[in-house]
């Protein structure tokens, strides 16, 4: 009697330990997890409303050094391709809004910035590092996942954006 109970208890513990590990990551070819987040001026941006546009979803934080380098590049992409159908959404994951605002004072963002201080969106995308970016095509499918911001990937991402825009 006791033995069976003990076995169940141990099995339960082991399951608990394993459950935390089994979280699927958002990968290329999968639909981008939907989100609806607020901007600084109280507006809402929902990924679902951007069907038909190419969307570059970037997760950033004020404490993340490479994120600082990614902002000028994203400004450039926004300026170059926005009117051809690209939308850049930078999802801030700071726990304190003030930190994000301070970052934005010295790093101008000429693209949409939304806030998720609860971490639900990075959780849904199972972000593996900061920054992480997801290139989403017009049908809402993830076509590229970038971990970190690397200068040698800029060209490849821009090429992808360009080909997605022309095949849209």
């Amino acid at each position, binding site marked *: 009697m006791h033995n069976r109970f003990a076995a169940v*208890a*141990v099995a339960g513990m082991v399951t608990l*330990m394993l459950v935390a590990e089994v979280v699927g990551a958002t990968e290329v070819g999968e639909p981008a997890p939907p989100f609806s987040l607020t901007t600084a001026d109280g507006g809402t941006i929902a990924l679902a409303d951007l069907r038909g546009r190419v969307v570059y979803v970037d997760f950033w*934080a004020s404490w993340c*050094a490479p994120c600082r380098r990614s902002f000028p590049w994203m400004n450039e992409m926004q300026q170059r391709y926005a009117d051809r159908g690209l939308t850049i959404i930078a999802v801030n994951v700071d726990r304190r809004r003030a930190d994000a605002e301070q970052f934005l004072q010295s790093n101008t963002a000429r693209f949409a910035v939304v806030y998720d201080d609860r971490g639900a969106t*990075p959780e849904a995308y199972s972000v593996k590092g*900061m*920054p992480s970016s997801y290139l989403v095509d017009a049908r809402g499918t993830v076509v590229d996942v970038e971990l*970190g911001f690397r200068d040698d990937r800029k060209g490849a991402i821009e090429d992808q954006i360009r080909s997605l825009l022309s095949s849209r």
Partner: protein
Amino acid sequence: MNRHPLEMLLALTLALTGCATLQPPRPWEKDRLARPEMQFEADPLDAKLTQHIYDSKEAATGGNGVGGGGCGCN
């Protein structure tokens, strides 16, 4: 021991697994870990000099530390 086997087992399991059942901070939760005061070395130049002296005294180099800070970005 024999009077409360279940309680003993529970206590033992919790003690043995320790913090292994706790979730480490996710990448987007590493704000505090990324702060300068959370680094092992306060002064990078000082750390470099110390390491250089250590390397020459030991006549061996490399294998110290890992790449990247606490933020998981590198």
